[in-house]
Structures are given as C-alpha cells and as structure tokens.
C-alpha cells in the first residue's frame, strides 16, 4: 500500500476514534443532517409518488381524443356526430368485430376527505363497457360492475381510502339524484383508482349533458397507427379535435404538480442544508482545534500534511454519512407509502402514495455527503496547515 494512503487511513482512524470525545457536538451534526435529509426525501417521495400514480395508468396504444386545445377532459365537449366519425376511424383495434372506442363523460362531484372533512372535487366518469375493456389491470375487488341504465357507481380503491361515504352498498347523493355504490375496483394504484365510474347514459341524463361526451378513448391496432388516425382527423373539418396517447396525456398532467413539489422541496432543503452546514463546520473546526496538538505531533513524527487534510475530511464525511443514513431511515419509517391526495390538473383529487425509491435514497445520501464534504473542507485545510512547532509549544 502506498505510504500516503496508509498515512491517511491511520490519521483518519485516530480522528474517528476521537469522535466520542465530542459526543454531543458530533451527535448534533448527525441529527441536523438527518433532519435536512428527511425533509428533502419527504418532498422527493411526494413528487415521485404523484408522478408514478399518473404515469402508471397511461398506455402507449390507447389514444385520448378531446376537443382542440381543451388540455383536460373537464374542458372538452364532443358531440354525437363527432363520436360517430371517430368510430369509423382507421387504425382502431376491434373486439368481437366492434371498434374499441369509448366515449366518456368526466364530471366533477363533491366529496369529503376522511382526514379533515375538507370538501373536495372528485371525478365521476360515465362510460360503457368498452371503457372498462380499454383499461388494463382493472379488477373488481368487491361487489359487481355497474349496470347500464341505473344510477350505480363503482368506486376506485384509492378514492375509497381517502374520502368518506363511498363504501359498498352506500347511497350517495349528487345534487338531486341518488346513486348506489355497487362495486369497488383496483387499477394497479393508477390515477383511475381516484375515480368514480358509472354508466355513460345515466351520467349524461342526470347531469343534463344530452348526448354530448367529453372525451373518446380508443385502442390502436399498434402505437404507430396514431399517424393514420391523425391524418383521418386532419382531413375532416368536422373533427376539430386533438389526439394524444394516454401515456403522453398523463405524463403532461403529472408534470405541473410534481414539478411544483420539487420546486418547493429543493430550495427548502438547500436552505436548511446551509444551516446544517454551518453546524457541521462548527463541529469539525472544534474537532481540529481540540486535536491541533495531536495533529502537530503526528506531523512531527513524519506524517504528511496531506494525511492531516484527508483525516479531517474523513471525520466530516463519516458524520454526514451517518446523518444521511439516519435521515433515510426516518423518511422510510415516516413517509414511505403514506397515502394522501391533492388537486390534479384535471381539477379533481388525485390520490397517491409517497414513493421513496432507491434512486431517491441515493439522492439523499449524495446530498448528505455534499454537506459533509463542504463542512470538512475548510477545517481540513486548517488541519493541514497546523505548524509542526505547535506540538512542542506549551499551549
């Protein structure tokens, strides 16, 4: 082993063993860094969870058709003639000879949060059986599917978890009409689980929508068929509509909110990290000051100033690593998987779980090490510059 490396290792080891001489100061550094890392990870997990929930539901081979520039289903209106035109569009997959086309209505109804009774917007989607066939991973976990022509609801598991009054068998009142919950469904944790589903005709009549719908979902024969579809739409002036893949639609919907969370989270974490950095610098400077004689002695018996430099840096990095570890554990214990909801781009609640992936934990660890590195750098320079003579002076 090269001499320098050996020296660095032994100086580091001596430094690390002296940490218990400064127990409170060292613990304080670990705790402050842990707190900062926990806050950062909480925001990252929130943003990631929201994004996963939205993008997890989108398919590459399902397209969403809405009126031009509508941006969201809530804003869109399509009339019956347009739906009929879409039914005969090219590139659409068929099931039992019928094209897989699902005209859907997306209306907003009131619900109440279980946690604080806050009144919130929930989506009620009216559709036919094609709509359910178009969605992968949908399974009924309780009860049965809604029957056409009756005011019946099936409720997504996420929605049921966060909002009150939608248990199986309940009667729910929207305005002047009553609806019965006949089933609960899961959809692999995707955004569809934040919805109420019912029969299209029933929603159209109870919500005074005549024969209009808001969006049409269609399954393509293959993803590239979207080009044929676009050409077909461009050639028909009656079809003043936009076509996007479901995947692209959800990715765009995810963007806004998950970006806002990150835009709040990162600056907050960085500002807090600056505070923690000040604490770390304090600790490591104190460590260098109390050990200055020891360091000078090491220099006197032949250790290089480089080894003093790295020895000090190691102490800082170790403390920050422990802090990062503790912070990750706290975040995993308290934040990973917790369920919450917020207003999505469709102006309705999206239920999601905080998702603390390994990639995010790595982010937290790197963040902690950056604090540790910066916190150790200047004290390490000071340690490297301690004059050898100070080993022999009285004080």
């Amino acid at each position, binding site marked *: 082993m090269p001499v320098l490396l050996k020296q660095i290792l032994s100086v580091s080891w001596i430094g690390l063993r002296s940490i218990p001489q400064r127990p409170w100061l060292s613990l304080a550094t670990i705790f402050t860094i842990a707190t900062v890392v926990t806050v950062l990870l909480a925001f990252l997990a929130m943003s990631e969870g929201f994004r996963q929930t939205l993008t997890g539901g989108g398919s590459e081979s399902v397209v969403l058709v809405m009126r*031009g520039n509508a941006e969201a289903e809530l804003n869109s209106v399509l009339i019956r003639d347009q739906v009929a035109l879409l039914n005969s569009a090219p590139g659409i997959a068929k099931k039992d000879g019928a094209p897989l086309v699902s005209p859907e209505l997306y209306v907003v109804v009131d619900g109440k949060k279980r946690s604080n009774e806050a009144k*919130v917007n929930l989506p009620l989607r009216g559709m036919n059986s094609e709509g359910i066939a178009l969605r992968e991973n949908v399974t009924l976990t309780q009860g049965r599917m809604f029957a056409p022509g009756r005011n019946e609801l099936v409720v997504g598991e996420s929605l049921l978890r966060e909002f009150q009054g939608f248990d199986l068998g309940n009667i729910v009142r929207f305005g002047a009409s009553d609806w019965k919950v006949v089933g609960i469904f899961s959809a692999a944790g995707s955004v569809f689980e934040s919805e109420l589903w019912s029969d299209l005709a029933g929603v159209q009549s109870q919500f*005074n929508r005549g024969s209009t719908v808001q969006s049409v979902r269609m399954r393509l024969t293959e993803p590239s068929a979207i080009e044929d579809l676009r050409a077909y739409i461009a050639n028909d002036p009656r079809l003043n509509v936009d076509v996007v893949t479901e995947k692209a639609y959800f990715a765009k919907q995810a963007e806004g909110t998950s970006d806002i969370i990150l835009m709040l989270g990162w600056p907050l974490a960085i500002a*807090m990290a600056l505070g923690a950095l000040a604490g770390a610098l304090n600790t490591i400077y104190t460590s260098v000051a109390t050990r200055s004689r020891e360091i000078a002695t090491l220099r006197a018996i032949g250790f290089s100033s480089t080894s003093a430099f790295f020895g000090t840096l190691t102490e800082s990095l170790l403390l920050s690593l422990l802090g990062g570890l503790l912070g990750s554990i706290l975040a995993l214990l308290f934040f990973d998987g917790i369920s919450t909801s917020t*207003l999505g781009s469709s102006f309705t609640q999206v239920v999601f779980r905080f998702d603390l992936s390994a990639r995010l934990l790595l982010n937290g660890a790197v963040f902690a090490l950056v604090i540790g590195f910066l916190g150790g750098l200047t004290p390490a320079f000071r340690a490297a510059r301690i004059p050898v003579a100070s080993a022999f002076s009285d004080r």
Partner: protein
Amino acid sequence: MTRGSLIWKNLTRSRLRFALTLFAIFIAFFLFGLIQSFDRALNAGADIAAANRLVVSNKINFTQPLPLSYVNRIKTIEGVDMVTHQNWMGSYYQEPRNFIFGFAVDPESFLAIYADDIALPPEQAKAFINDRRGMIAGANEARKYGWKLGDLIPISSNIWEQTDGSKTWELVLDGIFEISSVDTPANGIYLHYDYLNEARSFGKDSTGTIVIATQDPALNDEIANAIDTRFLNSPFATETRTEAAFNASFIEQLGNISLIIISVVGAALFTILIIVSNTMAMSVRERTGEIGVMKALGFPAKTVFALILSEALLLALIGGSLGMGAAWLMATVTAGVPGFPLRLVLYPDIWLMSLGVMIVLGLLTGLLPAWNAYRINIAAAFTRA
C-alpha cells in the same frame, strides 16, 4: 467594561463560531418568515372575503353550471341586496401555459358588488360597462403581457368556442384594475357575460357561480337557507356558502398545506435548536476557568447566570432578526416581479411570532449552560479549567 460589552465580547470571542451559529439561526428564521407569509398569501382569498357576501354554486360541485335564470330568482329573496354572477372562462393568452384567471361577468353588478375590492378609475369602469366586447385586466396581468388601454387582445379559452368554431375571443382592454387590499396581486381578466353567452356554441344561458351581497351579515344563514330550499328539488340544486368558506375550499383541495408548513418550519427550528444549544454549552464549558475567576472576583452567581442567558438571547435575537429581515427583503423583491402569483407580506403578527420564537430559542439554548455556570463553585471551576 459594561455588562453589555462583556456579553458581546463573550459572544464573539470565537468569530468563526459566532458567525456560523448566527448563520444557522439566520437561515431558520429566513425560512420561518417566508413560509409564514407564503401560508398567509395562500389563504388571502379567505381574508379578503366580505362578511356580507355569499356564493351560490351548484350543489353537486361548483364546476357544474347553474341556470342564468337563477340570478333574477335570487334577487327576489328577502335580505338580498345585490346579485351578480360569474362564468369561468378557462382563458389563456396566446399559449396554454400563459393561463389567466378569467371570468365572464355582468359588468355593472360585478363592479358594484366588488366596489370596495376592485380599484378601477370611474371612466374606465364606464367604458367597460358600455363596451360589449370590452374587458378589464388586473394590473399584474397587463404588466406581464405589456397590454395597454385600448389594445385589441385575443384571449383564448380552453372551454368555450364560438359558433364558427373559433376559440379565440377578441377583446378590447377598457380598464386596468388594482386590488385594494395589500395581500392580493391584481391578476385575472373580466369580460362581458352577454358577449360570451351570445357567441358560444354550447352552454348557453348557464353560468358558474352567483355572488350575492346581503343587507346584513346577520341574515347570511337565513338567506343561504332560503336560496338552497328554493332550488332543492330542481335539476340544479344549489349550495350557498359565505365567500370566505367558498374561497378557503380551494386551498383545502390542495391538501393539508398547514401540516406541511408546520412540519418544515418545525424541522428547521429543531435543527438550529440542536446546533445552538450545543455551541452555547461548549462555549460556556470552555470558559469554566473564567467563570471561576469572575466568581472569585465577587461577581454574584446571579450575575453570571444573567450574563450567559443574555448571551444566548442576544445570539437568537440577532440571528433571528437578520433572517426575518432577509425574508422581508425577499418578499419585497417578489412583489415587484410581474406575474408572481402570490403577494408575500410579513404582517406584524408574523414579526411578533418570530420574536416569541427567538426568545424561546434563546431561553432553551441558554438556560442549561447558565444554570451550570450559576451552580459551579470556585474551587471546582479552577480544577476543571
């Protein structure tokens, strides 16, 4: 040497340590000030709501329409002073990302009911009322997009299209308004409901929410009940709430923001509490010998206690004030940014609250070291030193 300078000398004996600790406190209070004002700005909608205003919306949800005829029917209810209504536009300028809060309104009743909140020069108000294709825009919006009075501005809607299929509404800027209260930026545009209603391809004769001013806030409940009962069994049942409750419901939809805010502020304060209390304890430990000397010289233990406690308080107050000052600066800077969505204001009670937190921080970090210094006897102090 006065007491004050003694405290100061002790505090700054290690310049570096003083600076670092001060900086940590600075950051925590900077965050404290900004986050508190952010919270306040988010809830500003509920603050500006007038006590005598009620909002009537569709009972299913406020995004569902109400028939326009309700406006006149509500006017006849006893105790109702003024009625106006607004229809959401889903508007943007040129590109969807330039999203604008836009409503189609009945200009005369709209300006009357919000006379205390919307500051618009009388001649501009008159021009707007008389110009069917006119609109008024918030000063913030006008500044952001460089709009001038008299400009013909194409406003797009992601909901309403004209009967010819166009989704762009050409509007004349007749007025630029400010919001009278300090904490709300003047955003948004308002256009004539009649113009929208006549030209739109669907949704005719429906509106979004109906706003009423009652003759007396004491009548609010009674009137709200009267309205909701009148429409209870119609296809468009209503829900009538105070304006404050209606505005607050938007923020509640975002999630438990106050919990997030309390947690983040709490975490930031917790970290500095750890940092500062350790630094204080260490700094007093290092001076054990000196404290012995002071006591030997005849300084009463009480004085020693007070000196150290004052040191901790002073540290918290200086760092905290600097942090709050920086937060104020930041808030002031953002107020000048055109299009900044929130108006951050550090209200007197936020300052007062921060002062309280500084004192608590000073006490928590100073009491134990001060008590140790108070207790230690001279002989022990000299041995330990």
